[in-house]
């Protein structure tokens, strides 16, 4: 499905509003939308809501052989998916340009900044390392996918616990969560992306652009930074020329925003940890809003299944069993049997007929020979053979001859007029057929 295009008046309105330092959703220039982080029941699962933009993050791990050139390092894998749920314009299948760009940026932000200690993921050098896989699904696209995705990735990675392992000689034991408490990943820092949208060739700037704002922007600057104000990645796209001062100002703003977001993530993690420790209820079901009229939750519901058995028995007793079909195999010959209603088998009859025909033809042949001998035309025999030979080379013509005996008669009359009188064309038919068959054999 195609994306609904933005009308010219909408575009003009948005740009006018931005020039007047106003935003459609009432935010100020440097304001982020509300960020909500919820964790699932599993470790490493979270949903991040940035306004109405929603990203689901899930971290999983697997023991794999390490890369040849890095035998002591674990593997990190990031995958952001733009589900067609998020926007009708996202098609499944071939990755779009946007998706490739976002995935690359995410990798640069998280893997290349070395936020996770990959060496701690090594179990056996050159043999086994942990592969950490981060799956991010965009559920609703309302702008600024990158920031939401990076928050979700960082939150999920911080929340994740991998199974504990022990190595004794060559043997690697992976412990289930019941045996040993799973261990968290060692994170060095938390890089967070902050997006800046530029309008009117860089004159105006907005933090955290919404989907509408993204559509009218001229350029985008993404700065990934950690709370120590270290820049991890910086990317400018859209082809606008930025002044040095603008970039510096943006990095300052990013520093403030990153500090706020990092604090929020840590608070959410702390909350979740506390609830889990106290044995309270956690997971997405608990984050379901109670006040909203669109949401409803009911407690465990007992279904009275006491009369189910009787009901089932009643249905079975009432139902008619399928009529029994008694099969009586008939042995026709040794090693064969026939079942069914006793109707004669018609299979292979055609072949049988042909065989018979062949036999007949042989007889005919003998007849012909005998007749020819009888008629004392010794010279006729080779002549007939030559005509037959011609027939072999052109069988289709012969078929026509069968249907229209007269022209055949005329044609053969030139060769052997005596024979023509002798035999009817009908008689000739099986003979030529036989010849054909022989040629095919």
């Amino acid at each position: 499905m195609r994306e609904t295009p933005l009308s010219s008046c909408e575009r003009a309105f948005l740009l006018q509003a931005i020039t007047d330092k106003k935003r459609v959703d009432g935010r100020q220039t440097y304001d982020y939308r509300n960020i909500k982080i919820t964790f699932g029941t599993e470790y490493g699962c979270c949903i991040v809501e940035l306004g109405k933009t929603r990203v689901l993050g899930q971290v999983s791990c697997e023991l794999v052989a390490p890369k040849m050139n890095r035998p002591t390092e674990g593997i990190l894998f990031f995958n952001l998916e733009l589900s067609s749920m998020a926007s009708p314009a996202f098609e499944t299948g071939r990755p779009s340009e946007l998706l490739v760009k976002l995935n690359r940026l995410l990798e640069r932000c998280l893997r290349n900044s070395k936020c996770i200690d990959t060496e701690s993921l090594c179990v056996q050098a050159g043999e086994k390392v942990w592969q950490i896989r981060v799956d991010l699904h965009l559920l609703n696209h309302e702008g600024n996918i990158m920031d939401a995705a990076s928050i979700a990735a960082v939150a999920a990675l911080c929340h994740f616990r991998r199974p504990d392992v022990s190595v004794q000689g060559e043997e690697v034991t992976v412990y289930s969560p019941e045996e040993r408490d799973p261990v968290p990943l060692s994170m060095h820092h938390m890089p967070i992306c902050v997006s800046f949208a530029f309008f009117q060739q860089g004159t105006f700037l907005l933090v955290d652009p919404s989907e509408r704002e993204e559509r009218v922007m001229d350029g985008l600057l993404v700065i990934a930074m950690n709370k120590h104000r270290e820049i991890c990645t910086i990317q400018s796209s859209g082809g606008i020329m930025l002044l040095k001062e603008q970039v510096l100002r943006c990095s300052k703003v990013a520093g403030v925003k990153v500090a706020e977001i990092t604090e929020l993530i840590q608070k959410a993690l702390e909350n979740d940890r506390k609830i889990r420790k106290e044995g309270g209820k956690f997971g997405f079901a608990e984050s379901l809003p109670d006040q909203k009229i669109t949401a409803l939750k009911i407690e465990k519901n007992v279904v009275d299944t006491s009369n189910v058995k009787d009901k089932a028995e009643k249905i079975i007793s009432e139902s008619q069993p399928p009529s029994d079909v008694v099969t009586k195999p008939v042995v026709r010959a040794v090693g064969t049997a026939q079942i069914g209603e006793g109707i004669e088998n018609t299979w292979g009859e055609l072949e049988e007929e042909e065989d018979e025909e062949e036999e007949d033809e042989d007889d005919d042949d003998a007849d012909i020979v005998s007749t020819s001998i009888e008629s004392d035309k010794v010279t006729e025999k080779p002549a007939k053979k030559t005509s037959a030979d011609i027939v072999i080379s052109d069988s289709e013509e012969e078929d026509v001859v069968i249907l229209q005996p007269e022209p055949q008669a005329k044609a053969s009359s030139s060769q052997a007029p005596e024979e023509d009188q002798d035999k009817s064309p009908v008689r000739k038919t099986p003979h030529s057929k036989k010849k054909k068959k022989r040629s095919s054999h």
Partner: protein
Amino acid sequence: MEEPGLREIGCEQSPLSRPDGSATFMQGDTSVLAGVYGPAEIKFSREIYDKSTVEVMVRPKVGLPAIQEKNQEQLIRETCESVILGTLHPRTSITIVLQVINDGGSLLACFLNAACMGMMDAGLPMRAMFCGVTCVLDSDGQLTIDPTTKEQKESRAVLTFAIESTEKRILTISSRGVYSTAELQRCIAAAQLSAQKIFHFYRDSAKRRYSKS
């Protein structure tokens, strides 16, 4: 012995702003998010001249959709097609995207419930509602409704039914494992009873949303 019953059910309608209809459905720890688009424009090649084309996409949480997801997609699509009044919207597409949020057992049933709530939210014309119920039979022939992942793993047979709301008839059966005809009938009867509870829940959540009080 615990009495058989459904785990706690939760549902939020329209949690997403972009799709025409969306719903989160939760059964215990299992949670599915559904997004529905339609009736919308369609590629010429996929157009059906007298009804709408229903498309279902199941998205797993980790990795890409595989054979199992394709199978589930087909099952859900056929169930949805049987209740959607597609003839009212010929030459259009109806797309249902189902995202696994958490799998805690009875996932297929939860998919079906989320799909139905999503379609209801999108306002698609349907001849009936439907719901999914999963039953498991253990080695003693004990029946459990709405099982968790653990119960599903330990069971002898898992049966998932899609049941329509008007006469509680069966739309779809998907099963794994060995069971007798008597057990099948028992499961159907139990599923029909559970379906009543789920439909009651559907009604309650619609009521809560659309009534003034």
